[in-house]
């Protein structure tokens, strides 16, 4: 039963459908063990954005204050989407590689596990 309601065929209005975002998508990004940023970020991006733009512009601006951002060796990074391993293709769009609306992207940077041994 998808809801306990007085009306037997009750359905809710889905508030966050992609069409409500004026041509954009929301994409979430979490840099693991860097808790200077206490939560994953929510980026508003056109689905035609390339992965390179997401990484080198949007993420760079959001995470750039962290001293370890500039040290990242991108060939060593582990990516996942919805818990499954992911190999980003830099010059393909988000849409083309299955990063759809409200997709959740995580990455870890081995050897760069935050500051002070505390994942900061």
């Amino acid at each position, binding site marked *: 039963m998808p809801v*306990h309601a007085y009306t037997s065929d009750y359905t809710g209005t889905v508030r966050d459908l992609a069409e409500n975002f004026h041509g954009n998508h929301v994409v979430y990004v979490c840099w693991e063990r860097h808790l200077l940023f206490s939560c994953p970020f929510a980026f508003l991006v056109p689905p035609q954005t390339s992965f390179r733009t997401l990484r080198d512009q949007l993420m760079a601006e959001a995470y750039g204050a962290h001293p370890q951002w500039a040290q990242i060796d991108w060939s060593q990074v582990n990516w996942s989407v919805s818990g499954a391993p992911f190999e980003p293709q830099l010059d393909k769009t988000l849409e083309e590689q299955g990063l759809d609306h409200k997709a959740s992207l995580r990455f870890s940077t081995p050897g760069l596990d935050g500051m002070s041994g505390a994942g900061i």
Partner: protein
Amino acid sequence: MAAKKLSLKDKYALLTRDLDWEFSYEERKEAFPFEEFEGIKITDWSKWEDPFRLTMDAYWKYQAEKEKKLYAIFDAFAQNNGQLNVTDPRYVNAIKIFLTAISPQEYQAHQGFAHVGRQYGGVGARVACQMQSLDELRHVQTQVHAMSQYNKYFDGFQNWSQMQDRLWYLSVPVSFFHDARSAGPFEFLVAIGFSFEYVLTNLLFVPFMSGAAYNGDMATVTFGFSAQSDEARHMTLGLEVIKFLLEQHEDNVPIVQKWIDKWFWRGTRLLTVVAMMMDYMLPNKVMSWKEAWGMYFEEAGGALFKDLARYGIRMPKFADQIEKEKEHASHQAWWTFYTYGQAAGFHTWIPTDEELDWLSEKYPETFDKYYRPRWEYAKQLEAEGKRFYNGTLLQLCSTCQLPLMFTEMDDPTLISQRETHYHGEHYHFCSDGCKEIFEEEPEKYVQSWLPVHQIYQGNCGGPDLPGILEFCGINVGNDNLDIKGSPDEQRWKQWKGVA
């Protein structure tokens, strides 16, 4: 001939149970249409024991006396400039949270109890809910009046009702009550009457009221005393509800258990704000959140659930998770608010060195290992003139609407994220508890008004941050940002004659 006075017993009967009547030409079911759809079986409403023997005339008389005294104290507080007696201006931010996050929920509780007070077939339950509905309405009024004196001298109090509707973190308490109020009447009472008022309320009221007492805030303390007898009544109602439902029919047990599991989890998420208030916002500390949780939930709640075991009710499902979180929740929450302090309706700050030591002492297993280093880094940045603010919007949980700021409890440097899919859409959660609640009723939670998404849909002013904050009712530059250099702090120094 003088009218004969009724005995107390007769008066009670006439003014409560006797208000009901038999239905001669309408189906009783038609009069109480919401009573069955939740699956709860009531076989005999007459078994409902009135949790308190109070009639409406006595209610008014008693409350009027109490409020006369309460307002005399508010007057004295104002005339004596009581606002100058608080420990320091940081304290006032705790009651900004109370006014914006808690008081409007008293109003929602009033609406909820007014609604269910009409919907039960049993007259005893209807009268009890009617009185609680009036209590909640009085509470929002007296809280607003208690805090109005601070509004004359401090920033951040002026737009509490607009903030309630629009400000991102306030959607957490708002959605909690929307969830309860849009549920059926029995779930509402288990959610608010039992889970919240009976078991968790001590973790809300005692910390705020003791915090007020420890920090010289006589207005809030006085409100607390005044509300205490009402709260005692609410707790009795909460307990009666649960016992009545469980005794009416064995089929009710699994339904009630599911509600208890859900509302304990939701309630605990809501109390995160109290956790950070106790550990970080009170200049004079009462006790740590961990100690409060141990005392009021683990000891008192543990005894209650032992008592309920004879009905087949067990501890709330995620109690073991919550036990681990007590080591972490307050630190993770205050760090989030500190780093998003430009987008809050109150001030934030780095704990003093003495406070950091207090936290180390209270959280020997976790604070020095995980949280002190963050504050040391924040101090370093502040000393360099680079006070850290996070400029990117964050990901919110589709159920509790808090940011995904909690970590895996067995791996406290790794953020906890959960995901589910419904009709081809992704939904994200802070925890297994919130994910399960969504999966039980996706048609309900697909409607969550998630502030970050609303901002991105263009429904919240902006698009720049000052525009969004103004839309939320924040006086930008005064209400938000660090306490250091704030108008609140500057005025306080002038009043106290310090540079």
